[in-house]
């Protein structure tokens, strides 16, 4: 069973079709998705910048983490749910879209980076909680995290240029704009 046939099956389900046919559901999901991802990136950046020794150097790393991470996780959950609703409405289009595939890959990288940091570096945080900047391994993890999340935002933006007409809901009414957008990302906007 190929990815495309799974996507075709998802797209044909009842909920997916109602989102695709509704005028407001996709914009609503997209708005929630953008707001949630903004808080994810904004919050994780605060911790990353602390680890890099750029800002909030006066506070212990563990305190910043405890302040910031509940926002990151809550909003990541919200963004994932809203994103799934957007995905199912045009599953084939997204599953075969290069920026979308890249975005999913980058999310995996961000997750792997976080797991490695958590299990190997952060487990010894009591030894460097007050250091600014943090040890090299933590700085590398923080730099990678920032890079991955910014790249996730970049790919997310490109998904809407490549799959939709002027980043509105997927529409059959203006297929030309979609085709143009695949050749020239700026074209969908003109």
């Amino acid at each position, binding site marked *: 069973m190929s990815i495309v046939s799974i996507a075709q099956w998802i797209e044909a389900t009842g909920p997916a079709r109602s989102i695709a046919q509704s005028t407001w559901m996709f*914009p609503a999901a*997209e*708005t929630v998705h*953008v*707001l949630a*991802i*903004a*808080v*994810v*990136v*904004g*919050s994780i*950046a*605060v911790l990353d910048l602390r680890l890099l020794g750029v*800002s*909030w150097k006066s*506070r212990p790393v563990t*305190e910043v983490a*405890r*302040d910031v991470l*509940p*926002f990151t996780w809550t909003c990541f959950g919200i963004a994932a749910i809203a994103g799934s609703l957007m995905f199912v409405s045009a599953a084939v289009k997204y599953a075969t879209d290069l920026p979308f595939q890249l975005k999913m890959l980058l999310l995996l990288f961000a997750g792997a980076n976080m797991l490695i940091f958590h299990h190997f570096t952060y487990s010894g945080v009591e030894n460097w909680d007050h250091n600014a900047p943090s040890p090299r391994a933590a700085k590398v993890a923080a730099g990678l995290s920032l890079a991955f999340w*910014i790249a996730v*935002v*970049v790919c997310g*933006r*490109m998904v809407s*240029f490549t799959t939709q007409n*002027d*980043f*509105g809901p997927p529409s059959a009414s203006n297929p030309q704009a979609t085709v143009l957008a695949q050749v*020239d*990302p*700026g*074209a969908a*906007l*003109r």
Partner: protein
Amino acid sequence: MLESLCAWIEKSPLSASIQNVGWIIPVSQIVHILGLAAILFSALSIDLRILGVGGRRTSVPGMTAHFLPWIWSAVALMATTGAILIIGEPRRDLLNPAFQTKMLLLVCALLATLGIQRMVQGASPLGAAGGRPGWPVRILAVFSLALWFSIAVCGRLIAYVN
């Protein structure tokens, strides 16, 4: 009046170059979203701390001292990238009710943020770490939160309303 302003902007060479160089608009939008990330989380941190809901390990002035510079820098960044987007496609924004609402709310949000800054960093009883913020600054915090998130919603709706 807005019509003629749009026509005038559209005829400018700057508008033409923004349109003709395909990557300028996508890049500006991406930077605009990153600025939004900084503002939304900074406003959340400050406002929830003022309301006593979160971040209580830091004092209210400690919170504003850290996050207000991020807000003001991000506002400057978003004004710049926003201006590029407007000059590139004036009709898409200036004539759009979602955009017009967004600008009105933005003025209110900036005033609320300035008010919070004055009240917290001025000579007020908020200086002590355990000090409980009074109701004027709490009301401003509620407004600030509601305004910044509504501004983000309006920004997204520009793509759907016309």
